[in-house]
């Protein structure tokens, strides 16, 4: 009987230590990548509170790419729909443009908004974009993984941030896994978890945050355009 149990435990252990099943992608592209003055990539982790009925708010991952006079912008995650209800999907420009500038620079309190802007390599940008594209497909095909999209958004932010660290440590991580040591998941409702996760990442990576002044001219221009029109629908003043 004991031998049988030992063999079962051994079988479990062997299998549980199998290499990670997903994302066994080569890091060669990242190792060979050369930074360029003409093309820059940014990943922005953005969120705020006090928007939805239970005091949580939009939380999403934003991507920014500047190449010459071209700018690619987009964000995906939880945001407020036209009626102010939580929605999951492509974030409207009016909502993510709030985070083109540092919320602190616009005079918003630290407790109600968080924004961590990281400059990343081309391969890192592509990997995060691939994560967001997968979620875009899941939304389009109604193939979300959970009945409550708050959990899907947790997976999205976890996958996006972990992709940054796949080949080298781009940011000091926080283990968001609902494990025993994960205080954020332990003490917050699902819709609020990504915000608290971003806030923790910001605290751990404040030195890596790219300030407004350090942003490339084209993206600064996009920022200025966004600021110039504060009455745009959904621009949502941060309290």
């Amino acid at each position, binding site marked *: 009987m004991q031998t049988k149990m030992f063999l*079962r435990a051994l079988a479990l252990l062997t299998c549980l230590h199998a290499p990670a*099943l997903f994302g066994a992608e080569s890091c060669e592209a990242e190792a060979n990548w050369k930074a360029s003055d003409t093309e820059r990539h940014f990943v922005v982790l953005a969120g705020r509170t006090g928007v939805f009925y239970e005091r949580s708010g939009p939380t999403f991952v934003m991507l920014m790419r500047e190449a010459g006079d071209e700018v690619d*912008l987009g964000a995906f995650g939880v945001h407020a729909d036209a009626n102010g209800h939580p929605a999951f999907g492509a974030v409207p420009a009016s909502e993510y443009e709030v985070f083109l500038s540092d919320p602190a620079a616009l005079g918003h309190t630290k407790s109600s908004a968080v924004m961590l802007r990281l400059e990343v390599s081309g391969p890192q940008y592509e990997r995060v974009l691939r994560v967001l594209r997968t979620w875009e497909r899941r939304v389009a095909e*109604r193939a979300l993984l959970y009945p409550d*999209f708050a959990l899907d958004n947790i997976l999205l932010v976890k996958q996006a941030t972990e992709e940054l660290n796949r080949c080298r440590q781009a940011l000091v991580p926080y283990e968001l896994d609902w494990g025993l040591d994960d205080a954020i998941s332990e003490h917050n409702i699902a819709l609020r978890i990504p915000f608290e996760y971003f806030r923790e990442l910001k605290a751990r990576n404040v030195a890596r945050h790219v300030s407004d002044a350090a942003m490339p001219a084209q993206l600064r221009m996009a920022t200025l355009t966004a600021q110039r029109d504060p009455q745009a629908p959904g621009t949502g003043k941060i309290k």
Partner: protein
Amino acid sequence: MKRRELFVGTSGNTCVQGTRACGTADLIPNVALRTHDDVPVRFYDDLVKGRQVVINMMYANCEGLCPAVTSRMVEVHRALAPRMGRDLFMYSITLKPNEDDPAALRAFADMHGALLPGWKFLTGDAFDIDTLRFALFRHNHIKFDLDPNFHAGQLRIINDSINRWVHVTPLASKATVLQHISWADPPKSMEQRMQDNRALQDEIGREVAKYGYRKVI
């Protein structure tokens, strides 16, 4: 400055909380898969609709849990041989679709003596496999759900005709696994139930005559 939006936000690709459109469209996804014989199938329409099925997840190069689970399933298949392929089916879905093509699955099945009637090994697109894995085996717990190995140690038994879902660990005894499969059996007719009850009463009577009390419960 040319500005390009990476994602297009329309009502078609946004889910709003509290609407049915947000959840998975189907309880059992009807994704396109390929069998170990390289036959294209639709998971729900071709394999599950109206049937009683036993489903597990595995991958061909898993040296720990998967062979143990497959071996238990072979035992279960032997015990239920008359039903297999007629009103009961087994499906083993790979967790590593990028590595396990139909040929690799066929080799795995052959190696474990699992090329049996009513039992298919399935592979497909990684996106669809993840959708299927979460629909059938998710625990609504990020840590467990992100560990595919956690899903390899489970059997999902579904009887679609009566919409009954049962779950059992394949590492339980064969008797326990068989019992769980029977819980998803189609309802018996009154005549069949009376016959079963009479047989059980006879058995109890024999035990009581032999030991003075009912020994086996």
